[in-house]
């Protein structure tokens, strides 16, 4: 049987925090080093984040780059079941979405 390589998740390269505004969530992905930032910037596209999050995000995903602090910011539209004031999600504020993004495999073939 082939040895399975452990999946390298984004959390190894970055930390981050999620925030909410209405029905839009954002997740920062802040690189742990300059090398990590270069790799994240090259590999973690908005499309990949959207696919990874699946039904958690119903709308589009935007990606913004902050070279000055070596971080990316992902804006997740229609991602909170209507927003904290009406969401039926356990986590209506989307605080856990940071972890959801950081759970993503760094390399595409490991998704």
């Amino acid at each position, binding site marked *: 049987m082939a040895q399975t390589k452990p999946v390298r998740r984004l959390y190894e390269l970055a*930390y*981050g*925090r999620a*925030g*909410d*505004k*209405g*029905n*839009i969530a*954002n997740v*920062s992905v*802040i690189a742990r080093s300059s090398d990590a930032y270069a790799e994240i910037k090259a590999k973690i596209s908005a499309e990949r984040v959207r696919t*990874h*999050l*699946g*039904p*958690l995000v119903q709308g589009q995903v*935007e990606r*913004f780059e*902050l*070279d*000055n*602090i070596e*971080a990316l*910011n992902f*804006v997740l*539209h*229609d991602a909170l079941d*209507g*927003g*904290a*004031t*009406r969401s*039926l*999600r*356990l*986590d209506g504020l989307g*605080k*856990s979405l*940071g*972890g*959801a993004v*950081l*759970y993503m495999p760094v390399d595409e073939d490991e998704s």
Partner: protein
Amino acid sequence: MLRIGSAEGFYGDDVTRALPMIAGEHMDVVCFEALSELTLAILRRDQMRDPNRGYTRDIEIIAERILPLAYARKIPLITNGGGLNPTSAAEVARKAAERQGLHGLKIATVTGDDLLARLGDLMAAGERLANMETGAPLTLDGPPIVTANAYLGATPIVEALAQGADIVITGRVADPCLYLAPLVHRYGWAWDDWDRLASGIVCGHLLECTGQVVGGNSLALLDEIAPADLARLGYPIAEVEADGSFVVTKTPGTPGRVAQATVKEQLLYEMHDPRAYITPDVVASITTLRLEDDGPDRVRVSGVTGAPRTQTLKVNVARLEGYSRELIFTLGWPAVYRKEEQMCGMLAAAWEGLPITRVETQRMGQDSLFSSLAPAPDDPIELIVRVLFTAADQETLKMAVRRALALGLSGPAGMAVSGQSVGADSRPLLGLWPALVAREAVEPHVGVTVMEVA
């Protein structure tokens, strides 16, 4: 240098963290940011029960415990905790000040953000109040609108400070603008000095969530902050120079940590386009700034840039769309998935004929936070199922709970029902409608009144 302390980040935060800041004279002004999107709707419920309420009750703690110390040291306090009723909040503060003999204390009230009574007139005058997320124009029919507040900027607070206010109590002033106001007051920054205004806004953004910039809610410092210290973090302070650059630090001698990592985490909190952080006073960019270490628990921020403010203000309109309840069922081995099927099918049949508008089930511990990110185990030892259901009225939900519980001896084998979920109140569901309104439709209605304690 002007030192700004931050001692509240939401309604219910521990505002007494201002006390060590003031006692140690570590700052020159303290801000208390109390309003989230949800807070105003909660305050409306209070106000419907008692017209003299509608403010955050943290004001009472601030007036009783913090104001005397701050007044003695001439440290002004600024808060948007007046919520929907800054006037009544100011009255509460006045009575507390009088009781404590704070003669000569000046209380300023800022009003004019509440557009609820003006919505019809605004729309008749051509304001579409189109939803910022969908583009649809607002209509007044449909579920009742319970709040409609514009986000005001720093201007009225600056005016209040210029009149010598010792405490400024406002309604929906945008969070970071509370912190910008004392800077404009102190340094006389022009209202088109975009880079400096933006610097003040970014400073406010970093401070406005109190614990979140000193190690709270921090993944970066997960292993570095002792668990007990999270309960007594020293709240943040910024030391701001006339050119707008500033150092973020915290109350000396208290737990917590300020590092570039905590500053980065908070910089991007609730941020959309980092080149255009839109506030009533300026459009700030956080893509040009630099962070530098400036000693232990000190991070210097410089190089913030800004662009001209927009011609519109944001308004949040909230509608009461209905109510929800939840029941939490825990199923024990064996065959938990079959039992889940039994339970859901049983509830659907029991609720037939009730005007329930939505039913959702979530498996807590499996998919309730992360949906399908990880595969579900084949034969779990326990399964916690959270069932949520909504209706236009609370009676329907009570009836639904009653019918569910009547099946106590008929349901799946080996099922526990959380007693707390059975006894809970229903929760109001509020649909938010973020929109834009012309400045000139709001700003002439903004009022600043100052009263002096006899």
